[in-house]
Structures are given as C-alpha cells and as structure tokens.
C-alpha cells in the first residue's frame, strides 16, 4: 500500500470514529472560569510532584540547609577568587590632550579605563590597566603621552606648556583631596625625573557633571529617571557610568552584528529547512515509485488479467440467470447488470491489450513520473533561490542597522566631548567673571575713596559749625 493511501485510510478511520456528542455534552455545562495557570494545574508525567513524597522533602530540606550553610561560608571566599571585579568608588580624570577617565575601586586600583576622545583611544590602544594601582597607571599614561609627543621634554616657553589637568570625584571629600594630591605628586615626580617643565592642575568636579555624563551615555532614559539620577550617590553614578560605557562598547563590537544576523537569518533558514524537508520526502516517494516502476507495472497487468477472468465468469453466470429468468422486471434488471459488466470487461480488455501490445502507455506513465521528479527538483532549486534572496535582503538590513548604530555612537562621542568642553569653558568663564568683579570692585573703592573723605570732612565741619552755633545760643 502506498504511503498516501495509508495516510488517507487512517484519516478516514479517525473521521468515522470521531465522537458526535462531545459538543452537546460540553456546550451547556456551566464552568467557573479561573486564572490558575493551566500548565501548573495539570501534572504531566515529566513533572515530579514533591507534595506526594514527604521523605523526599525532608531529605531535600536537610540537604538544602547544609548546602546553604556551606555556601554562606565559602561564597565570600570564592567571590574574591572567581569575581575579582570590584565596585567603583571613585573616578579620576586625566586631561592632557588625550582625555582619560579612570574608574577606581576602594583600594585605588583601576577597574575600568575610559578613552574620552580619539587621541585617548589611539594612545591607549592595546593597553590594559585593569587591576593596577592608580599611581602606576597615571605614570604609564604620562609616559605614553610623552612618547606620543603630547608632552615635550624641551625648555618651556610659558607656564601652561605640558599642563596636565587632574580631576577627581569621590564620595568621601578628604579621600578625594588625598587622591588628587598623590596623583599630582606622582606627575610632578615624573616631570622632575625626566626633566620635563610643566604644570599640574587639579580640580574638584561637581556631581552635576557626572549626572550629565551618565545622561548623555544613556540616551533612552525617561525624564523621571533623569531626575532620579540627581539623588543617586556618586558611587552609584559611577557604577551606572561604567555599565553604560561597557554596553556601548559591546554593542559597537562585532557581537552586535552576529546577534543581529542570527536574529534575522535563523527564522528564514528554519522555514527553508522545513519546506526543503517536505519536498525531499515527496521526491523520495516518487523516486521509490519510479525505481519499482517495472515491478508495479507487471503487478498491475496481472491484476488486470485477474479482473478480466473474474468479469468473464460473472457474465457467464448472468447469461445463465437471464436464460432461466421468467419475471420480466428481474430480466430487465439482469440485462442492465450484464451490460454494465460487459462495459467493464471491454475497458479492462482494452487496458490489457494496451499494456501487452504497446509500449506507448508504459512510456507515458513512466514519463509522468520523471516529470514529477523534475518538478520537485525544480521546486527545490526555486526554494533555494528564494532563501538566498531573502538572506541577501536581510544582510543589507543588518548592514544598515550597523551603520546606523555606528553613526549614533559617533554622535554620542561628539556630544560627550562637546559637553565636557562647554563645562570646562563655563568653569574658566566663571573664574574670569569673578576676577572682573573683584577688579571692578577694587577700582570703584579707589574711585570712591576721595569722595568719602570729602564727605567726612564736610560732615565734621557741619558738625563743628552746628555745635558752635548751639553753644553761642545757650550762652546768649
């Protein structure tokens, strides 16, 4: 029996045995709707019910308690070994022309190193400062900057040559000052040892700057979240900052591209595989049929012969019955039956003669099978072409999204640099304004001094005059 026939027969059996009264019995039953998750309520055999085994639960609980106590002791020890990454507690900014931010842990060791402009990216290319003490890292950065020509060893022409600006943000203000001083000394010592003439500037940064920086990196933050940032501690802000920067870097790397490709192409590939498998199965069926074609042909021819023999015997029986039959109605029925059988016999005889005499039919059926095989093969090729076309379209899309992301990151970087420049300018402007105010005030004081003196003199003379007049009046 052919595959198709087995399946259709099975379908027929199922259809015949499909219950008729289920809908009627269920339709009018009132059921209380509930929201208990259906998968939780039904116990599949793969799910072991813990409730049914009290011994198991007791054993499990004892084990759990033991394991928990073990973990309590071991975990803190393991954490140091397995996860050496410490929490960021302070940030140190080194600004030469390359601008670099160092995120530090409580031991002043570098946890993360951020290059804030292109010069810094080039300068730090291939360097890994993580886990090293901040003093050593600063020295390395200054050495690199010297080698790269940002700091010169030539005689200084003015005070601001080789200037390094160091900024620090820390929760604890005294620690912040200590950190700044120690770094300042490190740089100064380096300058002295290498006979470099330069100046080290230190500056306390405001918390608002950090908030702005976090804001600029997390451009998908809502207004409320942005407001909340102000209430976070410096430590928390530093953590968010390092996390956002890492994310930005990760997305920038090829991981993003691979992820995107998987997301777009996997479903297409799966769909193609399914279609391909289905066509393959059909193709195999037809090919098997084609391989056994001659055997089946012979079997069918034999079947045809058997049918003819059977029909001939049936016709002989019918002829006998007609001869004996006297009832005209029955006779008419038998004659109709006889005619039908004779027609069947004729068609079977024709098919047999075709099969035995001519190869035309044999070839025609065989050709049909070949055509069907070719049709499936063509379908396979067509599906493959479609799949490749779709993949190509998706690749273009992925490339677009990567380009878009690149542009976004570039914009953010520019924005970041701009923000820092503006903030720095603002700081310098504020200092200038204060100096202007002070100078103006002093000048005004100088201008106003003779007038005040004159006023005092006038007042004294008036007072004297009045006192004299008053004395004269009393004496009078």
């Amino acid at each position, binding site marked *: 029996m052919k595959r198709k026939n087995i399946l259709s027969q099975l379908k027929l*059996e199922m259809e015949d045995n499909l219950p008729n009264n289920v809908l009627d019995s269920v339709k009018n039953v009132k059921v209380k709707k509930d929201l208990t998750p259906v998968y939780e309520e039904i116990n599949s055999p793969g799910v072991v019910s813990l409730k049914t085994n009290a011994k198991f639960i007791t054993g499990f609980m004892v084990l759990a308690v033991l394991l928990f106590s073990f973990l309590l002791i071991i975990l803190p020890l393991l954490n140091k070994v397995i996860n050496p990454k410490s929490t960021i507690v302070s940030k140190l900014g080194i600004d030469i022309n390359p601008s670099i931010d160092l995120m530090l842990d409580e031991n002043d060791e570098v946890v993360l190193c951020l290059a804030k402009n292109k010069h810094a990216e080039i300068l730090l290319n291939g360097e890994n400062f993580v886990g090293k003490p901040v003093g050593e890292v600063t020295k390395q950065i200054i050495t690199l900057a010297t080698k790269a020509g940002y700091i010169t060893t030539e005689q200084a022409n003015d005070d601001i040559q080789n200037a390094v600006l160091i900024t620090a943000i820390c929760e604890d203000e005294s620690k912040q000052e200590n950190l700044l001083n120690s770094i300042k000394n490190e740089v100064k010592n380096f300058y002295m040892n290498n006979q470099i003439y330069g100046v080290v500037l230190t500056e306390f940064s405001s918390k608002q700057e950090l908030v702005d920086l976090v804001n600029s990196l997390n451009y998908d933050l809502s207004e409320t979240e942005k407001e909340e940032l102000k209430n976070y501690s410096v430590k928390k802000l530093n953590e968010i900052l390092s996390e956002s920067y890492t994310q930005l870097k990760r997305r920038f790397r090829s991981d993003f591209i691979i992820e995107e490709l998987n997301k777009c192409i996997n479903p297409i590939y799966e769909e193609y595989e399914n279609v391909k498998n289905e066509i393959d199965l059909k193709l195999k069926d037809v090919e098997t049929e084609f391989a056994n074609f001659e055997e089946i042909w012979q079997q069918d021819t034999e079947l045809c012969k058997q049918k003819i023999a059977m029909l001939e015997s049936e016709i002989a029986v019918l002829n006998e019955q007609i001869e004996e039959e006297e009832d005209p109605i029955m006779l008419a029925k038998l004659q109709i039956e006889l005619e039908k059988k004779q027609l069947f016999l004729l068609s079977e005889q024709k098919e047999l003669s075709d099969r035995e005499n001519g190869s035309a039919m044999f070839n025609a059926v065989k050709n049909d099978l070949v055509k069907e095989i070719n049709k499936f093969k063509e379908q396979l090729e067509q599906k493959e072409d479609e799949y490749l076309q779709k993949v190509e379209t998706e690749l273009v899309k992925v490339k677009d999204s990567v380009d878009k992301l690149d542009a976004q990151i570039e914009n953010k970087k520019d924005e970041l640099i701009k923000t820092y420049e503006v903030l720095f300018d603002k700081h310098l402007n504020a200092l200038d304004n204060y100096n202007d105010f002070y100078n103006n005030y002093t000048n005004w004081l100088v201008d106003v001094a003779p007038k005040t003196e004159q006023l005092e003199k006038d007042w004294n003379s008036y007072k004297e005059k009045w006192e004299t007049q008053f004395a004269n009046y009393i004496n009078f």
Partner: protein
Amino acid sequence: MDKKLLDDYLIKLKKGDNNAFDAIYHLTKRGVFSLVLSIVKNPYVAEDIMQDTYLKIKEKILYYKDGTNGYAWILTIARNLSLNYLNKNKKVDVLDTEEHEYLNPVTDKNFVKDDMPIFKIAKEHLNDFELQVVVLYSVYGYKHREIAEILNKPLGSVLWTYNNAIKKLQKVLKKEERDEA
C-alpha cells in the same frame, strides 16, 4: 489551518461569547481526538478526555494569551489530560487485572474497534511517539514543524520518526497482503 481565525474565536470566548465555543470545537475536534487517541489508544477513553479537554478550555480561557498559538495551547491541554489519565491508569491497571477476569472495552488498553484496521496495525507496530506523529500528520494535516512544537521535540526527530513509522507500516501491510494472498 487558520490560526488567526481560531485566535479570534478564543478571544471572543474569553469575552463571554459562547457561540465562539462551537466554532472552536469544530475547528479543533479532529486534532484533539487524533492526538488523544494516539496517546490513550482507546476510542471510548479518548471521547471522555476530549470532553474534559473542552471543559478545561472553557474553564481556563481567561488564561489564554491573545495572539499566541491557540492550536498549540488546546493540544497541550489535551496532551496533558491524556498523560494524566495514563499515569492514574497505571495504578488502576494492577488492581483491575487482579480482581476482574473479563476486560471492559472502556478500560481495556488493547481494545480497538473493528472498523479501524490501519489504526490497529499502527498501534501494534509503532511506539507512542511514532503513533502520535503519524496521526497528527495524517489526520490533522499538521506540518512537521508544528508537530515538533506540540510534542516538544526537535524537528529532525519528528521528520526521522515520521519516515521510519511510515516505512514500518508499509512493510507490515505488504506482509499482511502477501499472507492473505
């Protein structure tokens, strides 16, 4: 198979439209029956579990997430109820065979109606998974991918199992035809 249509009806039922239940039943009855029958292998038991399945659908309709695969949701309910039945029946079987000598068609696992010769052969010669795959593919016209989703198996296993099962059936039927001749 119109998933969108079934999803629409499930949403309507969720909103309290009881007429949608008839449509859901007619859209899914073949799939539910064939899956349940391929697991419990007894048409009488399958009928009972089919009833339970539709009652469960009514009861749990609020839990259906709009826009998800309604067929898979319904068939998972049917499958779990069938497996529950088999689990419970394992214990009952032991008692039954000890206390009763005769076998009741409703509780007899080996009972098959006379008008289901192919199913009988399939039941005897295929394992549970093979039977489920063949029935779901032939009766309900599920794609192999969908069967893999419903039975929670890899697509490759479903394709392989289906091919093997059909070959087994062909072999057995050929042998029977030869014996009869």
